[in-house]
């Protein structure tokens, strides 16, 4: 039982690995035709030009990446008690290389009533062979607001998100396993005119482990998908219920998007 979340994380990573393997297989199968027509760019080539959002890369200073993606959390029904709808979330990312492996990063995750806005600084290092490594620290706000459907409520919290990434190149497909800590606080909420804090405040709100698969294209853009596990407290997963349970819940997260 103690290893429950770890099991879920392993399961998610394992499944994502299978997807990645299938993707790589498909990429390899398609390689001769692609090469003949100019083909997708290699991960190594793109890493030195515009870089990737997830695969740790060190493009020259001033090179930028934008990304538009979607995220879906398959929330544990115990957290979702009484609710049957989970909205997909939109994810917007921006990355600007500062040179020498340093990057400025910005991230917005929104499902309209809840929003995460983070900016951060990262450092990436190309390791031996196909391996690469990255570390980043992001900070920003977690903001939720709902003024209808029986709510006149707002919640706001400072959020901090340190993360580590390990990347592996498969030629024209990049695999990246990113683990991040989710730290939040102080956290306040308003209902009507009444502001108050939550019980069981705890800076440690959770962690995530996601395996990303980034696929290069001829134009230098990248499409990606990924899967992994989120392990968070309920108020992060679904703030409108304001549950005071300090328990951590593990649920799968699926992501997909396009990097320009």
């Amino acid at each position, binding site marked *: *039982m*103690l*290893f*429950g*979340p*770890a*099991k*879920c*994380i*392993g*399961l998610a*990573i*394992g*499944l*994502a*690995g*299978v997807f*990645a*393997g299938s993707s*790589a*297989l498909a990429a*390899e199968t398609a390689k001769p035709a692609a090469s003949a027509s100019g083909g997708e760019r290699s991960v190594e080539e793109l890493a030195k030009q515009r870089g990737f959002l997830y695969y740790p890369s060190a493009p020259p200073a001033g090179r930028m990446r934008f990304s538009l993606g979607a995220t879906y959390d398959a929330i*544990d*029904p*115990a*957290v979702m*008690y*009484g609710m*049957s709808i989970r909205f997909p979330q939109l994810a917007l990312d921006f990355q600007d290389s500062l040179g020498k492996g340093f990057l400025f990063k910005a991230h917005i995750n929104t499902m309209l009533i809840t929003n995460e806005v983070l900016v951060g600084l990262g450092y990436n290092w190309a390791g031996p062979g196909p391996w690469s490594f990255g570390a980043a620290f992001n900070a920003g706000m977690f903001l939720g607001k*709902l003024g209808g459907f*029986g*709510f*006149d*409520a707002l919640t706001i919290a400072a959020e901090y998100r340190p993360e580590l990434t390990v990347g592996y190149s*498969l030629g024209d497909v990049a695999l990246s396993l990113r683990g991040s800590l989710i730290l939040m606080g102080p956290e306040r*909420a*308003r*209902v*009507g*005119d*009444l502001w*108050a*804090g*939550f*019980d*069981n405040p705890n800076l440690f709100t959770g962690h995530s482990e996601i395996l990303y698969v980034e696929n290069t294209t001829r134009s230098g853009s990248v499409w990606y998908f990924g899967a992994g596990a989120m*392990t968070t407290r*309920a108020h992060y997963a679904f703030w*409108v219920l*304001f*549950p*005071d*349970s*300090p*328990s*951590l*819940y*593990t649920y799968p997260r699926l992501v997909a998007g396009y990097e320009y």
Partner: protein
Amino acid sequence: MNTKILALALAIGAPFLLADCESAFEVEIPMFPDGGLLRSGIALKREQLMGFEGFFEVSKGSSLLGETTSVRTSPGTISVLTNKNAGFAVLGAACLPDQRVVVEGYWQYPTRVDAGLVRLYVDSRETAQAFCNGETPTPDVNFSLTGSYGESNDIPTKPLQLRFVKELKPWRRTFYTVAHHGACESTDHCGVSPNSLESIRLAERIGSNAAELDVRVTRDGVPILFHDPTFSASLVRGLFCNGAVNQLSLAEMRASCMMRYGEQIPTLDAALQMMVNETELEGVYLDEKTPEGVLPSARLVAKLNEQLANRPDRGPFTAVIGIPTDEVLDAWRSAKATLLDEGITPPDCLLEYDADKVHAEGCILWGPTWTEGPQPDNVQKLRDQGVGTIFWTINESEFIEGFLTISKPKGIITARASTLFHTYQLIGSVPPPVKGANQ
């Protein structure tokens, strides 16, 4: 390469695929291994337990209960209630052969995995003697309980002492600590499932004097207690316990479904009978999840009211039909007309969503969601119209304090009954009377 990747993925994933993905774990409710000292004593009578009620200072053991605690009683139970981690202790009391009075049981923080045993004694020899003689001494500032508490099933060794400070503020028939679908949230570790009979019994022991219960109907029209429209793994067990609640007959449901902790899904009838016959709960708020449940629920409540009219021994008990939507309101109007046609007095109602409709519909209570704020003006306006207010569902202690002080409602639905009860005793004020009402 691809073979290697697939092998790696399977190597990582396979061990985890072999095991379940359950992250929750259960807490064992602690018990004295030999039944404790209560087994060797003579249990104090219900009226004697009243001699333990009061507001106490925690002179030893504040790390468990905080600086103060409220002690209230129910049949067979002394409840020690605190706002620290929504903690409570559920205790029994008995006179021992050596004329000491022991008070023992377990404590728990329901939102965490912390629980343990408690064993206390009435300090004064004279007071203990009086209890053993069948008397009910009136507690005063010299009254204290001294003993110890422990972790999980360990024999208690950490010092715990409660000193009587003052009487409790009036709460019976005055302020309603309403248990949210029974004692605890589905994410808690209370050892009982929401909306089960066991949960309703526990609700009283941890500080509630009323309960909010969710009503749905089976395919054959029997009102049962269940929250969600469908059976899901977070609420029930059973390989064949799937699909919509209203697609199974009561017999099919009984054959296929158990609640999370193994209880039977109760019928509303069984729950109402249990509440009036086995508890001192003072009310129930039936949250009608579907229009189809309104008429059968109203019939059961009307039958219960007739029964209670012939039960002067039973304290007051008010059951209200909760109306959360316009569809249920239409069903309520129709049910009321049907009952009146049959010469049956309809039960009382509670309207959840529109303050302006409550009085017009003849309901005695308004039940707004807390997520719109304390709304003191609406609460006062309805009070002047003879309507009380019960907010749902506030679990966070700072918000409980805010609502108690800003709106002074008639009651609050909560899954943290101990926190609400003790906070009411600590900083709350007796709700202003509702004009002309006898709720």
